């Protein structure tokens, strides 16, 4: 068997083993490789940046444990910017596990310590609301008819942040981070199409192709696409975290994948004649 024949069918263990090594090296030794902030993340940052202090943001934590490595760091960076800007954040979860992500994200942001924010005055978490687009429509239609207590069981009427928040007209921005395609498009239908609200969308990188058409048409004002978008947000907000470290890992592994694709093609073409002859 020639070297090219061997290269054309490398064992799975070798390929995956090398990918693992390419992940471990930058994870243990962050190299601080350069970043290129994309237009979509910059648009997200600029949209939030343009909001005056005191503006109310509806934020959907629409992901669970599977999406946390990709979306969690971006969520933390997004909240850093929002608390820095003194925005009011009304959080909810359209994902069942969203209520478990909320404490993890807040642990990363520490709004009380870092920004002097007060729960109930500057931010509130309404918990998981079942129903997907029905829940979105309910929150944007008549929030207090749908939600009477927050995640901790406190009446929303007793929380000052909710004093003037009843529905879509009271939100200056609707933002979400989700791993579900239905949720990502659902917010466009329910918030933009119905109420012409400003919408920001966070999603996994592989969902970008299905969400970007809404960005191109102005229905979504900014996109945080996966770990790359999260790294961009961390860079733009000046709060480096897990995503920037992960972008080194992304650079290493994707470069390795490119090398493997190259090896696969060169070896395929070098052995093609032999294969046809045999």
């Amino acid at each position, binding site marked *: 068997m020639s070297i090219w024949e061997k290269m054309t069918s490398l064992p799975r263990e070798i390929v995956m083993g090398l990918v693992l090594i390419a992940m471990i090296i930058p994870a243990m030794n962050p190299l601080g490789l350069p970043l290129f902030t994309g237009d979509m993340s910059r648009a997200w940052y600029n949209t939030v940046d343009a909001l005056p202090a005191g503006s109310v943001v509806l934020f959907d934590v629409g992901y669970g444990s599977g999406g946390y490595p990709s979306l969690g760091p971006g969520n933390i960076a997004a909240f850093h910017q929002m608390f820095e800007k003194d925005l009011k954040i009304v959080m909810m979860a359209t994902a069942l596990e969203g209520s*478990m992500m909320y404490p993890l994200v807040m642990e990363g942001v520490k709004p009380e310590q870092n920004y002097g924010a007060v729960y109930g005055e500057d931010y509130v978490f309404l918990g998981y609301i079942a129903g997907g687009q*029905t829940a979105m429509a309910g929150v944007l239609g008549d929030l207090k008819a749908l939600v009477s207590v927050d995640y901790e069981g406190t009446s929303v009427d007793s929380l000052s942040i909710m004093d003037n928040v009843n529905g879509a007209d009271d939100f200056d921005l609707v933002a979400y981070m989700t791993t579900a395609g239905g949720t990502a498009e659902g917010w466009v239908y329910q918030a933009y199409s119905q109420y012409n609200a400003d919408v920001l969308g966070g999603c996994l990188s592989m969902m970008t192709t299905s969400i970007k058409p809404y960005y191109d048409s102005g229905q979504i004002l900014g996109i945080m696409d996966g770990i790359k978008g999260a790294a961009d947000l961390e860079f733009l907000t000046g709060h480096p975290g897990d995503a920037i470290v992960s972008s080194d890992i992304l650079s290493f592994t994707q470069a390795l994948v490119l090398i493997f*694709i190259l090896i696969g093609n060169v070896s395929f073409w070098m052995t093609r004649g032999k294969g046809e002859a045999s």
Partner: protein
Amino acid sequence: MDYRRDIPLAITFLIGIIAVLDYYTGVQVITDTFTLIKNWGVVIQGFALGLGAVNLLRVHGKRISQRSGGTDWMFSGWLLLMMAMFIVVGLGTGQYDAGPTYSWIYNAIYLPLGATMYSSLAFYMAYGSYKVLRARNFDAALLFITAVLVIMGNTPALAATFPGLFYTREWIFGPIVSGAYRGIRIGIGMGAVVLGIRTLLGMETGYLGRR
């Protein structure tokens, strides 16, 4: 008259008409009625989750009792044990999923497992790219070139060193992908409108479990 068919169809028609009128007219009494219906929808979907849990218990309980699927019944047993543990801890503390014990169990077991399940895809995608992305013919070559350009544009260090790669990715995502995707979405949208009208008129009964 078939009441089992006609009553659900009448309810669907009524709710559908209220939803349509709410969107197009904005009359207060209709909006209030539809708000009530939306809230019912959320409550019903909450019940559906409970029904899902009962169904999970039924399906996996049956698998355990029949010892079917080789040793798979053990996984069913583990699933039910974990479900029982989360229910007991959640209800026992009275704080549901906001309790520290519940959070600890979730963060120590489910969170790393969930993240690992998703992250392990990276290895299979890397191996799949190596095995499949080969320019065997013209179509495969197009796919190969597009994939390589998108991967290069999505690699942070490469995009930072050669910004042209990033803009190439953006161009692929723009006119090519968005154009195609819009066509697909418009097709789906038109289909959804037709399906909605057929459902409202009672011509579509698939959702009732009928053909």
